[in-house]
C-alpha cells in the first residue's frame, strides 16, 4: 500500500527550506507587528537565511551566576589574614583541620580556595584559573533584587536600563549580513536578566532531548505551516499581534539547530552519569555547543541557594556542597573542551554581593558588600590572585562590617568584552562608568 499523503515527519531538505522560511516569516511579522517587543530587533537580515553563514565568532563567554549573595570569604579564603579565623569561629575554613582534606587549598601566602573547589587544581596549575578578590558594585544596596538587576544590567543605581549587558553586546556585535542563530543561550527555563533584551536568545528547556523532540515534531508543522498568501511579502499577520507565531518559530528553529549541533558531537552521551540539574551537566552541554563551532558567544547560567543566613557550614556542609557543584562543573567543562579550545573560552563566576565578615548567631552570614569572582580560561592571566586587598582589619571594612569593593564589576565586564571577545565598546555602553586608571588586568 503506497502512501499518498505527505508524512508529517520532516525530510532534511524540507527542513532546511523550512528553516529559511521560518526565519523570514518570523521576521516579517515580528518586525511589523511587535513594536517595542524583545523581538522587534529582528530584521530580515538578523539571521543568515541562506548559505554561506557568516564566519562564526571563535570566542565565548560563559557567566555562572551564584544567586543569593555568595559568601566570598569562604570561596577565596584570606587564610593569611589573622582576622579571618577570629571573625569565623564556627564556619571558617581552617589551615590545620582534623582531616587533611578539609584544609584550605592554599594558592599563595595570603589566599586559598575552599577545599570543595579542589577539582580546579589542574586548571590552577595550567594557569587557567584566576580568582579576583573584592569585586562588586559601587552601589551600597544589600537587596538581592536590586543588586542582581544592577549587575546584570551593568548599571548600578540606574533603573532605566532594562537590557542585560550580554544582550546589549549581542546587538552591538550583530553582523549586518546576518547572524548565526545560536550566538547566545542559557541552559534553563527562563533567561537570566543579563541575557534578556531585544536580541533573541534561546532558553534551552531542562527536559530531555527526546521529550523536546516529540513536541517539536508535533508543533513544527503547526507553527511553520506552508507558506500561504497571508504570510507572503512580509505583510503584517493580523493573527500574530501577540507574537506567538514568531516565538514558536524561533523556539523550533533554534532548538532544532541546537540539537543538530549537539548530534554532530555525539549527542549528550556521557552526561547521563551527571545529575540532570547539576552545573556540570549544564556546562557539559554548553561545551558541546562550543566545540561544534556553531558561533556561540555568550552563555549565562544561574545556580541558586547561596543566601546562607543559617547553617552555612565550613569545609563541609551546605555551602560546600554548592561549591562542589561549581568546582566539578567548571572542571568538567574545561576537560570536555581541552586546553586548545579553552583558549577561546572564558568562564566568569560571580554573585551580587558578598556577606558579612563576622558570622552571625545562626552559624551563617548576612548580606554584605564586597564579593569575589573566579575567571577560568586560556586567555586569563591565571595562576595568581587578582585584585587589591584592603584587609580584614575592622577599620578597613566597608561600613565597619563588610569586605570593601576595590574592583568595579563593570571593569571586569569591560575587559571581557574588549579583550576577550575583541569588541570595541562605544561610549556609554556601561552608562556612567569610567575606566579606572590603575585597575587589574585579567588577561595576558
Amino acid at each position: 500500500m503506497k502512501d499518498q499523503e505527505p508524512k508529517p515527519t520532516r525530510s532534511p531538505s524540507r527542513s532546511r527550506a523550512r528553516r529559511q522560511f521560518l526565519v523570514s516569516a518570523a521576521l516579517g511579522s515580528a518586525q511589523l507587528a511587535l513594536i517595542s517587543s524583545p523581538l522587534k530587533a529582528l530584521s530580515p537580515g538578523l539571521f543568515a537565511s541562506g548559505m554561506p553563514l557568516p564566519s562564526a565568532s571563535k570566542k565565548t563567554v560563559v557567566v555562572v551566576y551564584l544567586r543569593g549573595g555568595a559568601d566570598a570569604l569562604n570561596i577565596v579564603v584570606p587564610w593569611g589574614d589573622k582576622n579571618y579565623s577570629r571573625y569565623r569561629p564556627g564556619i571558617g575554613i581552617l589551615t590545620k583541620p582534623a582531616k587533611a582534606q578539609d584544609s584550605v587549598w592554599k594558592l599563595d601566602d595570603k589566599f586559598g580556595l575552599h577545599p570543595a573547589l579542589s577539582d580546579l587544581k589542574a586548571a590552577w596549575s595550567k594557569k587557567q584559573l584566576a580568582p579576583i578578590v573584592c569585586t562588586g558594585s559601587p552601589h551600597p544596596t544589600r537587596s538581592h533584587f536590586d543588586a542582581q538587576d544592577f549587575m546584570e544590567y551593568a548599571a548600578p543605581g540606574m533603573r532605566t536600563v532594562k537590557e542585560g549587558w550580554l544582550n546589549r553586546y549581542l546587538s552591538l556585535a550583530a553582523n549586518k549580513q546576518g547572524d548565526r542563530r545560536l550566538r547566545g543561550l542559557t541552559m534553563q527555563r527562563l533567561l537570566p536578566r543579563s541575557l534578556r533584551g531585544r536580541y533573541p536568545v534561546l532558553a534551552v528547556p531542562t527536559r530531555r532531548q527526546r521529550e523536546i523532540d516529540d513536541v517539536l515534531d508535533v508543533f513544527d508543522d503547526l507553527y511553520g505551516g506552508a507558506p500561504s498568501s497571508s504570510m507572503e511579502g512580509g505583510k503584517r499577520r493580523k493573527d500574530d499581534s501577540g507574537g506567538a507565531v514568531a516565538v514558536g518559530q524561533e523556539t523550533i528553529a533554534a532548538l532544532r539547530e541546537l540539537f543538530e549541533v549537539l548530534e554532530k558531537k555525539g549527542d549528550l552521551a556521557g552526561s547521563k552519569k551527571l545529575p540532570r540539574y547539576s552545573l556540570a551537566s549544564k556546562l557539559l552541554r554548553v561545551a558541546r555547543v562550543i566545540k561544534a563551532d556553531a558561533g556561540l558567544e555568550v552563555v549565562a547560567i544561574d545556580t541558586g541557594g547561596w543566601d546562607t543566613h543559617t547553617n552555612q557550614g565550613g569545609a563541609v556542609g551546605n555551602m560546600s556542597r554548592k561549591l562542589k557543584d561549581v568546582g566539578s562543573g567548571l572542571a568538567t567543562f574545561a576537560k570536555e573542551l581541552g586546553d586548545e579550545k579553552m583558549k577561546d573560552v572564558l568562564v566568569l563566576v560571580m554573585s551580587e554581593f558578598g556577606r558579612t565578615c563576622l558570622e552571625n548567631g545562626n552559624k551563617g552570614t548576612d548580606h554584605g558588600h564586597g564579593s569575589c569572582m573566579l575567571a577560568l580560561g586560556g586567555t586569563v592571566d591565571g595562576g595568581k590572585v587578582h585584585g587589591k586587598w584592603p584587609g580584614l582589619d575592622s577599620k578597613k571594612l566597608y561600613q565597619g562590617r563588610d569586605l570593601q569593593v576595590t574592583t568595579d564589576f563593570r571593569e571586569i565586564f569591560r575587559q571581557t568584552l574588549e579583550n576577550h571577545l575583541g569588541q570595541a565598546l562605544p561610549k556609554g555602553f556601561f552608562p556612567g562608568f569610567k575606566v579606572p586608571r590603575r585597575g587589574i588586568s585579567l588577561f595576558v
Partner: protein
Amino acid sequence: MSTPKFNPAILAISWACAFAAVVMVNVAAVSAQDRTQDAADSLQGRERIVHLLSRVTFGPTKKLVDEVEKAGLESWLAAQFELPRLDFVTAERLSRFASLGLSSNDVYDKYVLRKEGAPSRRGELSNELTGSVFVRATYNSQQVGEVMSDFWRNHFNVDRSKDSVFWTAVEYDRIVLRDRVFGSFRDMLLASAQHPAMLVYLDNHISRRPPNKTELKSVARKVRRATGSRERGEEAAQIASQRGLNENYARELLELHTLGVDRGYTQKDVIAVAEIFTGWTVDTLENRYTFSFDENMHVHGDKFLLGKTVPRQKLRHGTKEGLLVLDRLARHPLTATFLAEKLCRYLVSDEPPPVLVKTTAAKLRSSDMNLGTAVKHIVASDEFYRPRHYRSKFKTPLEFVISALRVTSANIVKIAALRRTLEGMGQPIYNCEDPTGYRDTAESWRDPGVMVGRWRFALDLVRNRIPGVEVPETLFIHLKNKNRHAMIASLAKEVLPGGMREETLRFCIDASRRYDRIQREKAEAKAMGKKPSKGKKNPKDEKKKRKPLADRFDGIERFLLGVLIGSPEFQEQ
C-alpha cells in the same frame, strides 16, 4: 465508531465544507476589521464578546460566550460586579483547604508549629493557598474579581519564601487583596501597609531609629562582659550602630505601590518615608502575627516629605504620621496615573493607550480611587474595543494554564503537579522574589524556548498525564458520531472561540487523516492476521526511531485538543 469508507471525492468535498465552516469565524474577523476602517473602528458581535472575556476572565469557553451573547454584553458585565465573590460550587471545592479562612496565628498553630511526632504540614499549607488561586481562577463564576486579584497580587507582591510570609500570606491574600479588589485603593494600600506579610517581606518590621550613644554603650558593655574582650564589645557596638533605618518598604511604597518609579520623589523623600514608618512592626508574641506599633523604634520629630511637612505627633500617636502619608500618597495625582497606566497595560495592551490612561486616571480621582469604577471605565471605553487590541496580549504562564484548564473542563483534584507546572514555567504563585511582582507583558514571557513547556503541558493535560488533573471523557461524547471535519469545527469552537488560523485548521485535517489511515492499516493488518506492515527494516533503526507522539494518543480527539491548546492563537488573548 464510524470507520469511514474511503471515497476520495466525497471526502474532498466534505473537507472543503469543513474548511469553509471553520474559516468563517476568521473571515468574519477580517471583514469586521475592514468594516471598522470607515465606521466605528470597534470590535463587533461575537468578537467583541470574546475580546472582553479574554481580558476580564481567565479564558472564554464556548459556553460562556454563548451565555454572554444571550444575556447581552453590558448586562453580563454589570452582573459580574454584583455576583457574590465566590459561588457555591467553587466554595465547595475550596472547603477542603482548611487553612484559607484562618488567621495567621491559627495557620501557624495548625500548619507550621511541629507537634511532637506529627508530620510537617508545611507542604499542605503551601499547596492550599496556591491551590485556592488555581481553583478560583478556573471555576469561580465571578471571574472579574479573580482576574483583578491576580493584578493586585502582583502589584502588592509578597514572597512566601521569605520567613513568616510563608504562613501570613494566607490571611494577606484574603483580607488585603481579594476582599478589596473593587473597593477603595486607599483601603487596600493601608491594609497592605499594616499586614505582617508586607511588613516582613519588605523589612519594615525591623526598620528603626538608629540606636543612640547610651544604647550602643550598653551593647558594648554586654558583649565585653560576656566575652571578656574589649575589642569584641566595640565590634558589637559598631555592628549595632548599623542597625537602623531600613529603606526597603519606603522605596517600594513610592516606587511600586503608589507614585511609580522616579516620579516626583527623591532619595530624601525615601528616607523621610522610612522614618515615618519606623515602629510599624509585627507583634510576634505567641505567634500572633498581627500589626503593632513600637513607640521605641519610631523616629520622632517633624518630617519633610514631597515638599510638605508631616508634623510630629504626640507620644504614642506615631502611627498617625504613617496614616497621613498613606492617605496623601493614595490621593496623589501621580498615583492615579501610575495605577491607570498599569491597569490599562493589564487589561488593554502592553502599550497602554495614552488617552485611555488619562481618562482612567481622572475616573480614579473623581471616584475617590475606587478600583471597581476604574475597571468598569476601562472595559466600557471605545478604546478597549479597538480591533488592534484583539488577541494582542501574550498570555502569562498562569493565564495559559488556567485558560487551558477552563476550555478542557478539567477537574482539579490535586494541586502539587499544577503548582510544579507553574514553577517550571517561571511563575510560581506567591513566590515572586522581585517586589515588582510578575510582569504581565509579552516581553517578560516570550523567551524563545518557553513554548516547549507550554506544548508539553498541553499534550500532557489532554492525556491526563498531569497528576491530579483530569480532562473528563464526557468532553468528547458529543464528538463520537461526528465526522472528522465536524469534530474539528466543534473542538475549535470550544478551545478557540476567537477564531482559528487557516494553518491550524489544515494541520488538524492532516492529522486526523493520518490518524484514520493508521487506524485503517492496523485494522486491515489485523484482519489479515499479521502485524502492521512496516517493510523490512534494520532492527537497529527500528529501535532508534520512536513512534511520533501523535500516534501514541488513544484517540484523535484528545490529540487535536492538545494541539489547539498549543496553537499560536491560544497563547494570545
